[in-house]
């Protein structure tokens, strides 16, 4: 079930990727988080901005995006509940990409000066934040490989596996059924594919019996088959407590 407070959403995510302890959790709970709701396709941060806040995704789906000179959009990564997409803004003052909602979504904004002070005083929290941005970078590397070298069928299967796995690991879905209410055009922008080919590729995955779709709901009816089709290995998501 979704956590009840914005702090819980943040803490749950950090617990899946780091070894923060009870004392750290108590400190994290003191971060003032300003919640705000957004409709789909809203630019939260734009390239060139100098934000003084970072935000944690509390609900919905966010994409980092870049535009080519002639206006073509590439979605370079997805972010789900618990993720802090622009945490790098804590140290890189000018944003080098946009962050936009892909679905209706709720964000929690945290002041940079508060986060900085926390990091100076609590090294385990600083490490957890660092790990978070390192894992984001690992996801970007995977996406470059996905878009650059995998064929459309594998590419689509891979991105669906990643979304389902990430939503599951932060407790947003229980099984392999995910509501992914993003447009085919957005999927195309994430995969570097035309909308027509996005439809064809989804049709191929259905035909192979790997997924079933109802509206925006995607059901991985054959999870092992889908991970195989998607060339999906979870290593790059670095889940699990790293303390050992």
């Amino acid at each position, binding site marked *: 079930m979704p956590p009840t407070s914005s702090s819980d959403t943040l803490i749950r995510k950090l617990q899946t990727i780091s070894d923060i302890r009870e004392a750290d959790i108590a400190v994290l709970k003191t971060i003032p988080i300003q919640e705000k709701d957004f409709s789909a396709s809203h630019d939260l941060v734009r390239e060139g901005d100098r934000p003084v806040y970072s935000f944690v995704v509390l609900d919905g789906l966010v994409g980092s995006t870049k535009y080519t000179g002639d206006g073509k959009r590439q979605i370079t990564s997805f972010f789900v509940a618990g993720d802090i997409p622009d945490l790098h803004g804590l140290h890189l003052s000018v944003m080098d990409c946009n962050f936009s909602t892909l679905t209706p979504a709720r964000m929690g904004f945290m002041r940079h000066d508060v986060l900085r002070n926390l990091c100076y005083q609590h090294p385990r929290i600083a490490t957890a934040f660092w790990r978070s941005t390192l894992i984001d970078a690992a996801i970007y590397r995977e996406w470059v490989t996905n878009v650059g070298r995998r064929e459309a069928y594998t590419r689509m299967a891979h991105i669906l596996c990643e979304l389902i796995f990430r939503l599951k690991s932060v407790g947003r879905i229980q099984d392999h059924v995910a509501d992914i209410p993003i447009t085919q055009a957005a999927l195309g922008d994430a995969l570097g594919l035309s*909308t027509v080919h996005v439809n064809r590729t*989804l049709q191929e995955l259905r*035909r192979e019996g790997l997924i079933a779709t109802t509206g925006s709901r995607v059901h991985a009816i054959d999870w092992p088959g889908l991970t195989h089709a998607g060339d999906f290995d979870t290593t790059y998501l670095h889940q699990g407590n790293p303390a050992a």
Partner: protein
Amino acid sequence: MARFFFDSGDRDLVLQDEIGVECAGIEEVRRAGFEGLVDLTRDALKSVDGQQLFVEVRDENGDKILRLSLSLQIRSLR
């Protein structure tokens, strides 16, 4: 805006578009179909002489309104 369906394939296998794409007019249908054919070519074109790939567009009534296709020809020159 109206919804159009872009079936695609080769002689052996045609995949029906069950989702469709919203387009503002025939120019947009043509552009979407062309982009789809380019992607299809990257994925499905094999080194087989005479292979044909196509995208065929239906409107909401099921009437076929446009077909884009290309075929590969391989000729030895000596």
